[in-house]
């Protein structure tokens, strides 16, 4: 078993069943985890910001930074591994708030909203989520089983 770390703004897809995809420090960022149980392909995106419109150059250099460029790219990479959209399970984690009350204009909430907008437009439903609150999270996706766990502090829970 080997760990494949997804950095902030990073994106990885794989069919290697020895791999566990992992990403740390999910504060206001969101991890989008995809798994196709038919072809056993897995993917993980760790995006930081909702939209790329104000940073088109950065979107080219690091598309995984933004929900609106990262999520479509994640799905394209899954399709390149032979996945079909209808088979892909989607789990998400993060989107927390760490200042104030976490209301409408909080970056974590805005990340969550943009992510849901993208999935709504694409007619994709989220299978499971662990979002919001003020916990920092670490997400793991085990490629051999498709299982996802979310860790906050020392507590690890399946998603």
């Amino acid at each position, binding site marked *: 078993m080997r760990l494949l770390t997804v950095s902030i703004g990073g994106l990885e897809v794989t069919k290697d069943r020895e791999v566990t995809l992992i990403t740390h420090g999910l504060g206001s960022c969101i991890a989008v985890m995809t798994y196709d149980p038919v072809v056993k392909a897995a993917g993980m995106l760790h995006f930081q910001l909702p939209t790329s419109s104000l940073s088109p150059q950065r979107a080219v250099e690091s598309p995984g930074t933004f929900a609106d460029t990262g999520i479509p790219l994640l799905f394209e990479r899954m399709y390149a591994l032979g996945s079909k959209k209808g088979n892909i399970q989607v789990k998400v984690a993060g989107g927390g708030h760490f200042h104030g009350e976490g209301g409408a204009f909080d970056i974590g909430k805005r990340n969550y909203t943009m992510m849901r907008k993208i999935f709504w437009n694409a007619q994709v439903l*989220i299978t499971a989520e662990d979002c919001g609150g003020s916990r920092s999270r670490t997400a793991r996706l085990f490629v051999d089983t498709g299982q996802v766990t979310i860790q906050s502090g020392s507590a690890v829970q399946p998603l």
Partner: protein
Amino acid sequence: MAFDILLVDDSPVTRKMVRRAVSLSGLDIGQVLEAGDGAEALLRLAERRFDLVLADINMPVMNGMELVERMSADPVLSGVPVVIVATPLSEARVERLLDLGARAYLPKPFRPEALKGVVEEILGKGVIHA
């Protein structure tokens, strides 16, 4: 077995959103018909059988509370499950609706995944739509 569903809401935009969320549920959905208020819903319910009614509360002509009351008093319609999808209500109104026989209450804004979960639970997993 395909499930036939009646959507009752005076907002055509909300009816479309609910229709889309239902279509993503993975259940075998048959016909999805719409009504703009409780009175129109009763007309549709008199014409044919539905497996589920998804109804708003705040509507003209006849609101959702009265629709649930009428359905619960009818020997045939009382067997049709009703899920209320409505803007946040007071606890007393939610209790009243559930006492009248509404199977569930989903506050707006609703997550499509939450609506899917409620619909699947009430209709059972059924035949998965390919």
